[in-house]
């Protein structure tokens, strides 16, 4: 700042504009802090706040948490003991917040065709995505880096991690279920599945059974250890789009083209209840973590919440304007995410069915949604060939993680890569579209030599990219971030066309 832009400090004792208070008052700091918090709550650009407000925040942070604050004390008595009054009640938002991320990760594709299914490993470290391009991809969730790619002979409709995270089951149009070892990408077993393609797979919570739903009207239970058919559950009139185990493993829910949801007893395969309410195909099912509710998403654009105790519809969640393809409960069961052909993800409050947030940004329908194990974010896989990460709070609380496979991205699309080190000293690498804001302090590590970029290494070992870190001065960008300018030090990565993957025959 140039000197002549500054105002001369004027803090000498001077007369001030009288306020509404007639009495002279000594105010408590807590009251001021409460005021400051109110100001901050309504201002997202924290950095833009005056330094005064920032200092108040320090004191607020030092103060014990309290929901009440002392009022100003009138000086009419010399006693300066503060009195307490309740703090303002938290305000509720009548309309849901729409979180747009049209530019975030824009153009950086994960697959070359629609992504039909995604799954997060139980330890939250890996994301599996699969689609009609016949490739299953594993991504590191904390960086968005492609770790491994596995090819099937046909399009993949569904993937699921085993409860211990050691296996991934995949099913698709070639009628078999494949079990992959997550640690090295090896194919453990191929299981005979449904005759007309497998649309849905689910592991039982104990990892012993695998349920399959497919086009041939039946639900099958297979033993994971040897692939034997344990039971065939028959009752659906047509194809089964979705299967899900209850958290205790005693029930299996299935739903499909006949608009109905069926609940089966796993122990003996008997039909416990048929849930009727949807007016179109049922695409997705999810049990609440406490096992009391079942959510179903349907072509009728609704999400229904069912009580498992009596089979009644607890709530109908309406808001999507097109087919609901996927539903998922948050780990604490308080929220439900739904992905739709209308290209949005909606976040619902389970307790009252209130719409909390709408995430917009996909340019194609959302075929699959999943919560992270910590419940902080949602991942979505879309027909637009991208996987996107959405922070549940609506505000970015971590880096923009783009799931970017250069081999799946159009050649004209360019990206930058940067490294940033967290509070534990762990350095992570992220890839974002050119021009994206990157955190201050991040170091651009883009490959600056056109044509020399290395695609992920084929083989069972995780792919790694080790660009040379190069310090790059950064300019402040929108939102307090920094634009990686892609100058002579840090330039965009030319996206290669050629891509290698592990092929299993």
């Amino acid at each position: 700042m140039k000197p002549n832009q500054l105002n001369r400090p004027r803090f000498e004792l001077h007369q001030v504009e009288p306020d509404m208070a007639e009495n002279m008052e000594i105010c408590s700091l807590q009251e001021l802090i409460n005021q400051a918090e109110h100001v901050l709550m309504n201002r997202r650009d924290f950095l833009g706040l005056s330094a005064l407000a920032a200092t108040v925040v320090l004191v607020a942070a030092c103060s014990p948490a309290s929901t009440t604050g002392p009022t100003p004390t009138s000086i009419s008595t010399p006693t300066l003991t503060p009195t307490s009054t309740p703090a303002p009640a938290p305000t509720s938002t009548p309309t849901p917040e729409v979180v747009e991320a049209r530019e975030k990760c824009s153009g950086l594709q994960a697959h070359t065709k629609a992504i039909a299914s995604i799954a997060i490993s139980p330890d939250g470290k890996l994301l599996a995505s699969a689609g009609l391009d016949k490739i299953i991809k594993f991504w590191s969730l904390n960086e968005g880096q492609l770790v491994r790619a596995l090819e099937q002979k046909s399009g993949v409709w569904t993937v699921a991690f085993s409860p211990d995270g050691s296996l991934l089951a995949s099913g698709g149009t070639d009628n078999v279920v494949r079990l992959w070892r997550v640690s090295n990408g090896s194919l453990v077993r191929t299981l005979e599945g449904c005759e007309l393609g497998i649309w849905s797979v689910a592991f039982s919570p104990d990892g012993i059974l695998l349920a399959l739903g497919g086009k041939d009207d039946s639900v099958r239970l297979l033993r994971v250890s040897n692939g034997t058919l344990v039971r065939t559950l028959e009752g659906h009139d047509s194809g089964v789009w979705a299967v899900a185990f209850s958290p205790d493993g005693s029930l299996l829910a299935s739903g499909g083209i006949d608009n109905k949801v069926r609940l089966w007893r796993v122990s003996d395969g008997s039909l416990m209840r048929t849930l009727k309410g949807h007016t179109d195909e049922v695409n997705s099912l999810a049990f609440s973590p406490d096992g009391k509710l079942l959510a179903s998403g349907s072509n009728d654009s609704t999400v229904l919440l069912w009580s498992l105790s009596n089979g009644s519809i607890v709530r109908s969640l309406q808001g999507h304007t097109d087919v609901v393809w996927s539903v998922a409960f948050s780990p604490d069961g308080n929220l439900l995410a739904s992905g739709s052909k209308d290209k949005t993800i909606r976040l619902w409050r389970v307790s009252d069915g209130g719409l909390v947030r709408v995430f917009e940004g996909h340019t194609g329908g959302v075929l699959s949604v999943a919560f992270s194990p910590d419940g902080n974010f949602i991942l979505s896989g879309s027909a637009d060939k991208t996987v996107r990460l959405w922070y549940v709070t609506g505000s970015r609380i971590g880096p923009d993680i783009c799931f970017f496979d250069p081999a799946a991205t159009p050649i004209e699309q360019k990206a930058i890569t940067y490294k940033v080190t967290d509070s534990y000293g762990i350095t992570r690498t992220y890839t974002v579209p050119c021009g994206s804001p990157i955190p201050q302090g991040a170091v651009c590590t883009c490959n600056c030599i056109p044509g020399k970029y290395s695609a992920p290494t084929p083989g069972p070992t995780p792919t790694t990219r080790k660009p040379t870190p190069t310090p790059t001065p950064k300019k402040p960008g929108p939102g307090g971030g920094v634009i990686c300018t892609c100058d002579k030090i840090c330039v965009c990565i030319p996206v290669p066309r050629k891509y290698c993957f592990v092929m299993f025959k």
Partner: protein
Amino acid sequence: MRPLISTEVFVIPLLGRYLVYAPLRRIAFIANASAINFLYRLRHGEVQQASEEEKAFLQFCEQIHLTGEEGDWPITTLECATFQPTEVTLFLTTRCNLRCIYCYASAGDRPIAEMYFIIAKRGIEFVCHNALERGEVEFGVGYHGGGEPTTHWSVLTESFTYAQKLARKNGLQVYGSMATNGFLTPEKQQWIIKNFRGVNISVDGLPAVQDMQRPTVSGKPSSEIVMQTIRTFDKANFPYGIRVTVTSASVELLPQSIAYLLNEAHPKHIQVEPMYSLGRGRKNGLEVEPSAFVQAFLEAKQIADQAGVDFFYSAARVDVLANRFCLSCGEGFSLTPQGLVSACYEVPGPEFEFADQFIFGHYDERQGRYVFDEEKLTNLRNHTVEQISWCQACFCKWHCAGDCTYKARHAMVDGQFLGDSRCEITRALTLAQILEKIERSGGKVWAEPAIALY
């Protein structure tokens, strides 16, 4: 009616209220407009007959000793009426083994200049002599920047060994100190542990930040060796402070950097400063926004507070009442490699800007003593915050005391200081300290007992 408030009172608008601050009485509280206007009337003797409410407020003011003519705390100023320093700082070399992207001295870009032993010896003898004359029990030898002192190792060790001998001979103690980049060999680390009382190490935090901001001459990472130095010091229980420089590229990572340093190291203190717009820092475009610095600093301070480590920015010091920021105004005695006497660490050679104002003496071979430009020295000694008109209505004036004189020179227009970005940081962080005082005093009033009561 005579004014009932004689001490300096500042009023800082704060979210619709006002912080009343009397620095020389060490009093602060938050009040509304009515109270401020009553204080104004008290200050100007306009209260003829107080109402019941006003009487109560007046009673409160008396209670906390805001009123009354006596009771101001003293302001520290020059220790000695004459220039008789007892500590010499040796700018041994312009050479450096790092190429910090913001180096105020542009070390490595300037021609190599290295101090001869004889120059160090004369300076040491001068301060030893002064210590004896002043009846002190010790004198100090410091080694500082312009380059990395440890890259001129022979003169560093020789000069300090000489100082130790001289001290012994005269029945004095000598203390050694140094500002270093910490990029040291194990042998140098051990020598420092054995001989010095403490050092300040410049390290910017997380390895990624350190390596980006403070690379080696060849552009390689420096963090591993610097952290190794720190670990060696910790292992030997050798006291050291850490100095962290923040740029716009590292400001967001400051809290993480401090967490990392406190996890890896056990410094006595951590000093955090925004990058100075001097030397290479003037050209790199990484000047940090004051508000961003303040926010990051406050976040980082919480981490340091939890660890019980003193964490500060040099100009925000509410516990200091002074009219000078540092010794540069008339008490500093630093020697450039050429043997010139500089008042300021940031003027380590005659080629630096404003050297004509801060280099004020040399050793006269013929007379066999140092000779000083009395006019320059007087100017430096007279440079107090009372002389800076810009600061007169600022509530930080007795704390930052006009801040770093050398940096302030760069913000002068027609010889007048007109404020700079450090002022914003200083005010925000000083304000935070005042509010913290209030918080720790029960949340309403901070009023230390009047000095007269001691």
